[in-house]
């Protein structure tokens, strides 16, 4: 019974996260979903992952999201456009799939108590190895995406100077005679227009 209530609560929190108009509110609803999923996992007996979900899912990710929102500035609330047909379709599809699959689940086995650490590091060791690669790739991606291009001036110049038919490519990099007012300056827009 408690599980059923928690499940319904989780789905409703998720729905609120999806339909709320302010990003900050959506983030907080998402944190609630995380916490409830953590509780559900705890109920299932999966204590270790419940802790990780609470700390990473409800904690770290929320902090990151809030950080990103403050960096960007919470944009004016975009009105939630209800797409009722789509909603009904999704609900029907999920009911159908869930109903179809839940009835054909094989009989549950008794849980064999295994130490999680052994499974994680020994049995699924290759997953861990691949994960390290994945984390490094992610770090590289974030660094690359956020690194400020010091060639941005050069790029702006080349945007104006560049025509594929240009005969002289040397002035693409130099471009001293370009009128700056004509150049689209995407990074400056932030300062001029309040977001």
């Amino acid at each position, binding site marked *: 019974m408690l599980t059923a209530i928690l499940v319904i609560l989780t789905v409703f929190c998720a729905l609120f996260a999806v339909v709320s108009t302010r990003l900050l509110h959506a983030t907080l609803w998402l944190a609630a979903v995380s916490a409830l999923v953590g509780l559900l996992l705890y109920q299932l007996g999966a204590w270790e992952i419940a802790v990780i979900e609470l700390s990473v899912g409800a904690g770290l990710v929320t902090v990151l999201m809030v950080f990103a929102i403050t960096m960007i500035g919470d944009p004016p609330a975009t009105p939630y456009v209800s797409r009722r047909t789509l909603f009904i379709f999704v609900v029907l599809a999920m009911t159908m799939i869930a109903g179809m699959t839940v009835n054909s*689940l094989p009989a549950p086995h008794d849980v064999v108590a295994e130490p999680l650490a052994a499974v994680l590091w020994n049995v699924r060791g290759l997953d861990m190895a691949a994960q390290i*690669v994945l984390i490094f790739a992610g770090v*590289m991606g974030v660094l690359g995406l956020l690194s400020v291009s010091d060639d941005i001036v050069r790029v702006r110049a080349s945007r104006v100077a560049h025509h594929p038919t240009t005969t002289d490519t040397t002035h693409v990099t130099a471009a001293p005679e370009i009128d700056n007012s004509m150049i689209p300056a995407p990074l400056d827009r932030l300062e001029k227009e309040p977001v």
Partner: protein
Amino acid sequence: MTWLAGLIGLPCVTSPLVYVFGHRQHALRRIHAHDLALLMLAFVWIALFFVMQAFAASEVLTVEYGAISLRMDGISLLMIVLTLLLTTLVTIFSRNDLVGTVGEEKFYASLLLLLGTVIGLVCANDLFNMWVWFEGMAISSYLMVAYHRQREDALGASTKYFIQTVSGSILVLFGIALVLMHNGTLDLDMKAVEPSPLLIVAGALFVLGFGVKLALFPNYTWLPDAYGEAPTGVSALLSGAVTMTGLIAMMRALSLIIWSPEAWGGLLLVLGMINIMAGTILALSQTKVKRILAYSSIGHIGYVVLAIGIGISAGSMMGLRSGMLHLFIHGIMKSLAFLALGALAYAAGCRNGDAADFSVDDLKGLAQRYPGVTLSLAAACLSLVGIPPMGGFVSKFQILLAGVQQPSVWIVLLIVVAALFSVVALAYVMPIINTAYDMQPSPSREALPDIPLSMRLPIFILAIALIVVGLWPGLLDSIVDPAGAALLALFG
């Protein structure tokens, strides 16, 4: 096998080295990140050499760690050879294309990571382990698509790619959970025997989820934007090799749950056919050359999926083998087309991702100034259509042959339509060739600078490979035959 472990580990382990020592502010920096990456790739080639020797002796190599293992079979071998070849050539090519941009060391490090994760993915012998490699591959490719991040379009394309890829991989996770529930294990050798609704849903999720990476209908919308905006070398690598790993992953996942090959094969036939039609028709209305090539990729993915569909539904070795052959040859010809185009755009003055806006008209008269590279571009384009004696003819012909031999009228009908669309493809390829060979003398073109050797070298290697493969297709038997056989064994 230690060499196989080395082959998988080397790119992943050396990638941080490229990042750290290739950084322009590093105190010990004596060597450019690009040269460092090439050096590391040379080591990978050496590892591959020994792995291939061992493979020839024993047919299957495995690395075991814990309960799960990485196993190399014919399919893995084909994908590894193709990816490593393209990564090396793209690294050589990118030297001049990207020199001076911020974050080169991250680019080359990501390139190595991409190679490492692809090798891990095609060797994985466990459903969930395969997903982890798959996700790693996706994550290392976001930066590469958005590399020209000062371009708004590049960021937009990368965002679209990101959202679609992540949602696809979540659907795959649901499929994995369903398979685990039914089979009780994630081992790719433990195939389900009796049908169950769980497995039908899982199969649909695999087709949808891996279909995002493969750009299979209906999830191909990210592809033209991503390939159009990525640096040219990355477009070549992604379309030639990385996208196709989605197919390999899908095949391995589907092989677990396939108990009625006709139904799944039929689904693949239909999806492949839609891809062919959509890719070819949408390519006709494009003006930017990179986007034309990207849409043509969608069509060619359709041909590969069509061939595999024929192979699965009829259990025909020839269908599967021709699919693998087309996968390999498409890798060569499409990356050749992208690289040759990138070199021409570079020569015409496109820097920092402006090659994305290079339109067909900008090619005007370039054949006179750059006869070799333009000829390579033309050869690649003709090969895409399937004109002899290029490589593309051989593989397309074999797909059609495999289809015509099937008793089913529907398959033969599909094959006829596919052949017709192959002719339609001429309509988007001919403008490229015609404009490039527009022989009006234009003095402005005469003054264009030479294309650097680092760009010409990979183009000529690929062009020679394409023609040699077209004339002597038997040369590829040693890697295509094991791949076909391994694929047949998956569904056998």
